[in-house]
């Protein structure tokens, strides 16, 4: 494999030659297991030999052909993947539609020095294979150069500048990660439950309790371990083609979110994290299943990262307004933690008493706006405002606002979404394919009504 820069742009490439082996190991293992089970009664070396003699050439011939007929090509606008022995399938992925490029290294591939390159398009079906495509397997180096090439082409830069230099922004030390897991309630609740169940068993001398509790303990251990493994050496770095997020103990994940593709952000802290002042940061990226941006970080660090993601945003300066006092009737405990506010770039909501959340959505990323009024809300003249955004776990909801204010928020949001592309083109100036914003001469009756700093209804 030569490097991407030295080849003509329209040349076809093959995947790594070890691909069939890695793809087929499951199949080979299954066949081997069934063969073993069949022969375990009458182990005849001859039978095994014949099976292997038949199986091995067939499998390797198929593997070779599948590898031979799978190829890809990158040109200025798209990457084309051809697969299929008998039924050919061509898939063209337009580079300017790529939402994120990820390099994943499952355990086995990592051992062989290979990697999977995943291209995410912002399809309507999250996590659906059909909405993007993946190249598995490539050598790690090839995957890196190809990713650099794709991102550079997608960003409209010369494709042969090599991998863009990156600057680490945040690293999560393993010690803090372990402490954060120990400080989350889930493992302790499970331990307490186990204790409650086991104590009577110990006192009475019957061990049925252990049997009941073991799966739960294993489950807790597994989820906690998974959190640790996925967050191990978690690094967020900045590069000209986007934000690089990588981490993982066993399976290494490494993905890049191009600039301006973050749809929404959530900061969340569990009850015990408030003491060290830690938060978890998740983001919505269209078509991307992975949403973790930072498993745990001091709040100031997280805010600094967010302000780097959303330039021109100063989270501290956004005026956060409480809901009207009568909302206490519906949320006596939460009332103090429900807030919402906006500046000219983002809409911010806060909610939750124990698990405190701060959710941020740039005005440009709001897809639709809903005002929902439950029957009880109507009695108290309250309403919720939902701002729908794409993909991922973050949901934006400004709860329990005064009705008039809620409609004013919705109208203001609609107005911003109309003005948005003109006013705030910051993160997307590098995109060339977008149609120029509609320059129609609209009168702006709402602008006066819905200035960004709305106040309580008066």
């Amino acid at each position, binding site marked *: 494999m030569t490097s991407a820069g030295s080849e003509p742009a329209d040349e076809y490439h093959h995947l790594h030659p070890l691909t069939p082996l890695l793809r087929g190991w499951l199949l080979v293992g299954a066949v081997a297991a069934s063969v073993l089970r069949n022969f375990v009664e009458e182990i005849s070396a001859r039978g095994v030999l014949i099976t292997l003699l038949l199986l091995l050439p067939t499998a390797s011939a198929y593997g070779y052909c599948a590898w031979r007929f799978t190829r890809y090509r990158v040109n200025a606008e798209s990457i084309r993947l051809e697969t299929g022995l008998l039924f050919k399938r061509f898939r063209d992925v337009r580079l300017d539609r790529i*939402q994120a490029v990820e390099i994943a290294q499952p355990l086995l591939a990592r051992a062989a020095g290979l990697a999977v390159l995943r291209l995410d398009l*912002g399809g*309507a079906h*999250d996590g659906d294979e059909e909405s993007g495509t993946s190249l598995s397997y490539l050598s790690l180096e090839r995957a890196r150069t190809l990713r650099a090439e794709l991102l550079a082409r997608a960003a409209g830069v010369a494709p042969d500048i090599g991998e863009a230099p990156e600057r680490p922004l945040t690293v999560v030390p393993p010690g803090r990660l372990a402490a954060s897991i120990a400080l989350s309630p889930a493992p302790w609740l499970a331990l307490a439950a186990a204790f409650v169940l086991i104590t009577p068993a110990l006192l009475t001398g019957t061990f049925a309790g252990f049997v009941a509790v073991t799966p739960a303990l294993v489950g807790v251990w597994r989820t906690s371990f998974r959190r640790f493994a996925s967050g191990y050496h978690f690094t967020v770095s900045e590069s000209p083609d986007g934000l690089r997020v990588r981490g993982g103990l066993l399976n290494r994940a490494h993905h890049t979110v191009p600039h301006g*593709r973050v*749809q929404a952000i959530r900061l969340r802290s569990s009850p015990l994290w408030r003491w060290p002042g830690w938060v978890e940061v998740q983001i919505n990226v*269209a078509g991307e299943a992975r949403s973790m941006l930072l498993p745990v970080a001091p709040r100031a660090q997280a805010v600094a990262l967010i302000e780097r993601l959303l330039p021109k945003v100063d989270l501290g300066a956004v005026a956060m307004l409480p809901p009207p006092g009568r909302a206490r009737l519906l949320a006596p405990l939460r009332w103090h933690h429900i807030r919402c506010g906006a500046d000219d770039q983002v809409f911010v909501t806060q909610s939750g008493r124990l698990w405190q959340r701060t959710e941020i959505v740039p005005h*440009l*990323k*709001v*897809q*639709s*706006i*809903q*005002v*929902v*009024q*439950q*029957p009880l809300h*109507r009695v108290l003249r309250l309403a919720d405002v*939902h701002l*729908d*955004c*794409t*993909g991922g776990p973050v*949901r934006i909801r400004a709860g329990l606002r005064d009705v*008039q204010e809620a*409609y*004013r928020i*919705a*109208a203001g*949001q*609609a107005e911003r*979404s*109309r003005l*948005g*592309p003109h006013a705030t083109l910051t993160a*997307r100036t590098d*995109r060339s*394919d*977008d*149609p120029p*914003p*509609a320059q129609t001469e*609209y009168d702006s*009756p*709402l602008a006066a*009504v819905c200035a960004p700093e709305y106040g309580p209804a008066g």
Partner: protein
Amino acid sequence: MPDLWRVPPQAWRGLSPQLRRLRRLLLAAGALPAAALAALVGSTFLGPPGLLVAFAPLGAAVWAWHAIGRAWDAWRYAERDDDLLVQHGVLVRRLAVVPYGRMQLVDVTAGPLARRFGVAQVRLHTAAATTDVVIPGLAPDEAARLRDALAERGRDRAVGL
């Protein structure tokens, strides 16, 4: 809030009366046999006074008849210069604002019964899975007009993700 949205009252459009008729017909088709069954069971076990049991399903049907009317009344939509407003709900009131530039798909569907009655459903999709905006009963011509109008305005104002 109409003045907040700057939509003149006559710009709000409602659903086709055919939808209300279709729903009430379905209701009657369910309620009358239920009442007959209740009367039969009641009179078998309680004698003639048991016929009164039939009033329970009938009463529920009358209430549902009105509920259908109110829900139908509450559902309305307005096309503004840059977005579509859809309002519905009697108990839980909802107002959805969908900017034309954010629409990805407009579906028009009509089942066999709905086609018979001449109503079609328009559903809007944006890139957000939580957007669920439906206009359930429109005359097929109006549905097609709305679909084409929305698609055209969406094209003019399209914004990437």
